[in-house]
């Protein structure tokens, strides 16, 4: 597996710049997961700043606002745990280049949610993140400097 990891540089080396982007995003998501774990899961913080900001947003579909106020806020510890889990999945996946395509789709869904709740000043950041997830999923960024190359050689298919 380790051999395949470095062998990928020889055969799909043109993806290397995108792999750097993937690894950076992996580091970013892991760091975010660790921070949110400290604050929201074991730190007893009941709601995130982003959520408080979201409730002040006027342009939001009614059903989504209902979901935020009636479900997400009242079950915040559970959702915070799931959120940290998703961030950890994306972070680890991007760092080691394993199951990058499905992880990118997860990242895309997460960012679409953030986009719905974010203030206008943060919207651009989340749009950029969405574009990055789409790019990583499109090129299969785990195939260069990632474990996906090893599995792709053996199993093929669209998920690697």
């Amino acid at each position, binding site marked *: 597996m380790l051999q395949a990891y470095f062998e990928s540089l020889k055969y799909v080396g043109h993806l290397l710049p995108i792999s750097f982007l993937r690894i950076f995003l992996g580091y970013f998501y892991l760091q975010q997961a660790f921070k949110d774990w400290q604050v929201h899961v074991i730190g007893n913080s*009941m709601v995130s700043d982003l959520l408080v900001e979201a409730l002040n947003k006027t342009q939001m579909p009614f059903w989504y606002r209902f979901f935020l106020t009636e479900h997400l806020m009242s079950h915040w510890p559970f959702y915070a745990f799931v959120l940290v889990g998703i961030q950890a999945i994306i972070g680890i996946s991007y760092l080691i280049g394993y199951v990058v395509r499905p992880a990118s789709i997860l990242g895309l869904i997460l960012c679409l949610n953030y986009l719905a709740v974010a203030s206008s000043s943060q919207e651009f950041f989340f749009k950029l993140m969405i574009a990055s997830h789409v790019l990583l999923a499109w090129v299969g960024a785990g195939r260069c400097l990632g474990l996906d190359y090893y599995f792709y050689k053996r199993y093929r298919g669209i998920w690697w």
Partner: protein
Amino acid sequence: MKHFLAFVAVVFSCLTVFYFYRDDGQNSADYTSLKVYGSGSFIGSWGPGPKLKEIFEKQTGIKVTYLEMSDPALVFQKISFEGAQAVGDVILSLDQYDLARAADKLTWKAIEAKTSFNLPDTLKELEKMEQFKAYDWAPIAFVARDDLKITIEKLDDLLNPELKGRIALEDPRTSSPGLNFLAWIYKTKSEADADQFVKQLMAQAHSFSPSWSAAYGLFKNKQADIVLSYATSPVYHLVEEKDSHFTALEFKDGHPVQVEFAGVPESCINCDAGIRFVQFLQTPEAQKIIMEKNYMFPMIKAVQEGTAFDGVKNFKLLPFKLEVKEQLQKWLGTWTELRKNEG
């Protein structure tokens, strides 16, 4: 896909194990530590926060943890949502507009004052406040380099054609000094005159920056000749840069003041320690640190004796009073409308 599902299961299993085997001490209410919300400029390494924390911890044995806040209104809302499980014991870096606009979202502990001040008569109101304790203040003023050839002694002088595009101002919707300036205009002029003045000022300003630091940056880079700031700003240049070429412009009709407050919300866990921390901020020792780091006047006049703050001219001050929320919203609404038309 099987790989992905297995991967998800492994990650969540690990997190579940971590969750159940975490240190339980963090999960229960901690009565030996204090959680203090403050702005980045207060709790950052360059602000007074770290030094105050060190002294307070040494004096009381209570551990202080700072939590950074960007917008007090959001923190109020957050604490209100969190209810009994809220983590903040003290909230710092509140200005008079935060109090006017959002403080009613929470209930606050009354704090007994342990220190008596010798404040100017126009600020006596501050001593009467029971729930919020002021820890520094400064008059709002325009700051210029001393080679400025134009005389500016009143608000109307800002409309001098020679200053066109040379005034760095702050957006009142996002900046507290900006809002203070807007209130200054409306409180010293009739409504029609104020509207007219704001309209003319739109064309006169270099820009309306989202924050004080952005506006001051324009001034420092010489893109603007004057900037809306504090009467104490030249002291910063004098002390930190040994540059005495900056001056705060005195307006004969008086200056409004910017005041920073601390408060203890009712939802506090370690309330007594929170109150002690706020009282500590008003002691001469803490006041000196706050003055030297924030470059604002201390509440205790004696603290500034023998320092560079002694050289700051005593400006005539407009009486301090908390504005009414609806009034502020009305002024901001008018400003936004005029700005939109200008754009």
